[in-house]
């Protein structure tokens, strides 16, 4: 298969689509002002081509912050793109669409990936999506877009998740998740008094969450929201750690960018040697794949801000670019199988 990245810093979709020919699947990453028009325009340029889209920044070895970016797959993929609606309440209502699409694509875990772009209620969406995907062990990579809307096949949907079941006809696929944080000392907590609807943690090991975080890191209440760049929480799920960013302080509780549940086991994390982590991810991918057709990734907005702050973003894109054809989205949350995570990078590699 082949991946093409088209972009226009000024938001000119036609210009962005110039290098794309005979696409079999397109992802649109637009801006708030032009999203609707871009969706319509894209359908006009490439009628009937499966597509999904959302509002967000995109990149290959260049960043597209305000314009428009297109990622097109061609030459050897079979794709079904669709949408589950009412995700804030009952995405399962539309589950037969996904079941049907999975059946139609008829992929396996070795050659098929589900890419999703979500407008919210991510954890519930992922549970719902994965309830179908898990029967075929199909991995999922995706992220959250801005402004509560997504697009699928030329239509805009609010409160929805747009997904694409992508089967690589000429090789394998594999999903990865990268974590640039590691456990800080031995801080381990059991969350309680949570409000999963408000993504709130009331207590950690029975103590007020805000106080616990402040006492360990010696930060003021105002500093908590920026301290999360260095010290987010990690939710343990077996051997995996899912990063949770802190959004704000609410009374004595901490409100996060992800749902936290009673009985969740959380770790306090700290930023590690992210450059080395990136290099190790690249080495791992190179060990797994001798030939790489494309890499599609979703990078968290917080990572983008952190890397920019440390003047590393361009170097990062160049490093990832060495893998081959690398392009992706800056998301508000990252999806990896049934895990909704923050401050992470998820990617899918096509052979």
């Amino acid at each position, binding site marked *: 298969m082949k991946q093409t990245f088209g972009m226009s810093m000024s938001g000119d979709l036609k210009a962005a689509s110039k290098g794309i020919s005979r696409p079999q699947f397109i992802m649109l990453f637009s801006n708030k002002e032009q999203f609707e028009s871009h969706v319509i325009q894209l359908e006009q340029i490439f009628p009937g081509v499966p597509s999904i889209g959302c509002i967000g920044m995109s990149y290959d070895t260049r960043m597209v912050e305000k314009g428009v970016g297109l990622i097109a797959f061609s030459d050897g993929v079979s794709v079904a793109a669709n949408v589950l609606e009412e995700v804030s*309440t*009952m*995405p*399962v*209502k539309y589950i037969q669409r996904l079941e049907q699409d999975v059946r139609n694509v008829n992929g396996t875990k070795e050659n098929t990936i589900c890419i999703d772009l979500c407008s919210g209620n991510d*954890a*519930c969406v992922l*549970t*719902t999506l*994965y*309830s179908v995907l898990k029967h075929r062990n199909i991995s999922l990579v995706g992220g959250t877009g801005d402004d509560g809307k997504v697009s699928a096949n030329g239509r805009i949907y609010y409160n929805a998740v747009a997904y694409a079941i992508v089967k690589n006809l000429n090789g394998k696929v594999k999903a990865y998740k990268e974590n640039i944080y590691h456990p800080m000392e031995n801080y*381990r907590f*059991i969350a*309680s008094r949570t409000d*999963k609807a408000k993504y709130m943690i009331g207590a950690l*090991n*029975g103590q007020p969450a805000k106080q616990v975080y402040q006492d360990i890191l010696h930060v003021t209440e105002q500093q908590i929201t920026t301290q999360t760049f260095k010290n987010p929480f990690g*939710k*343990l*799920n*077996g*051997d995996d750690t899912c990063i949770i960013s802190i959004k704000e302080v609410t009374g004595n509780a901490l409100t996060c960018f992800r*749902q936290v*549940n*009673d*009985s*969740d*086991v959380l770790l306090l994390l700290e930023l590690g040697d992210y450059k080395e982590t990136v290099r190790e991810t690249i080495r791992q991918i190179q060990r797994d794949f001798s030939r790489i057709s494309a890499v599609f990734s979703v990078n968290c907005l917080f990572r983008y801000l952190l890397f920019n702050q440390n003047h590393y973003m361009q170097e990062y894109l160049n490093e990832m670019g060495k893998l081959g054809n690398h392009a992706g989205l800056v998301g508000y949350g990252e999806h990896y199988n*049934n*895990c909704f995570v923050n401050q992470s990078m998820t990617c899918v590699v096509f052979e």
Partner: protein
Amino acid sequence: MSFLHKPKQEVIKAPETQKNLYPVLHVMSSLKDYHTDLVEKEVSSLIEIDKIGSSFGEVLTETDEFHEQLLDFGSNFSSIEDVSAEFVTVKNTITDSVSQAQNDVQELKDSSARVKTYFEEMEHTFTGLQEAIEKIKQCTDKIVSITNQTNILALNASIEAARAGAQGRGFAVVAEQVRKLGDEIKTLTIDVNNGVHDVEQGANHLYGNITTSQKALSESLEKVDKTYQTFDEITHSAEGAGAVHDEISNVIGNSQDSLQTLCGFFEQIKGRYQDVMDHITNAERLGTTKSAMFEDIDNMMSQIPLIINENNPGK
């Protein structure tokens, strides 16, 4: 399980004939309660497992510390052994020094014995000298006696020469010459006697010195023998210290064996503790996966009432 004894939910009765989805909603509501209970219990379980893990972690730490102390104890044994070995080194140094000193003493003894032999030879030579002096004295006495007789004979010859008158005058001159020679010999003999006397006196003085030296040498030899014996006693005592070290080494060896056994036991215990820790870690790991499953269950269950309500409006 506690949730089995939970008071039943209040059920709003509806006609059984009515085909609605209310019973499903009721089941959902109950399941939701069970889910909530289950999560609460899970929180408690996780806290308990965490406490067990912490306590066991402390047990492991304390075991490690105790093990460290045992090893330190073993190090102490080694230190004692080292000190004791130092003692042996000191003993060996003493033995070597004593041996060296004994060699020196032996050499002193040997050279003294040789000096003694020389003294004895000197004494023997001296006796020969005394005898020679005596012989010289006897000779000189004889010479004096002969000289005296010669002088008498010269005197008689002078008298006879005087009687002979002029014919005897030349003979008288010869006789006078002989007498003078005799006197000179006598004088010389006296000088020789005086010299011999001086030699005799010096020899006697020397003999006295030799005798005194011989006595002093004998006393020194006795002292050397005594010193040699003392050195022997020191060496013997030092050997005794070596035996004490051997005993200490044996005791330390036995203690170290026992300590080794104890450490081995601790290693085994530690292995078992580690197994338990691994199980606890596993239980915690499983607990965290359950937490993700609870979230999935909750995410799925939370959609059901909404769907039912949508499909069954007003019921």
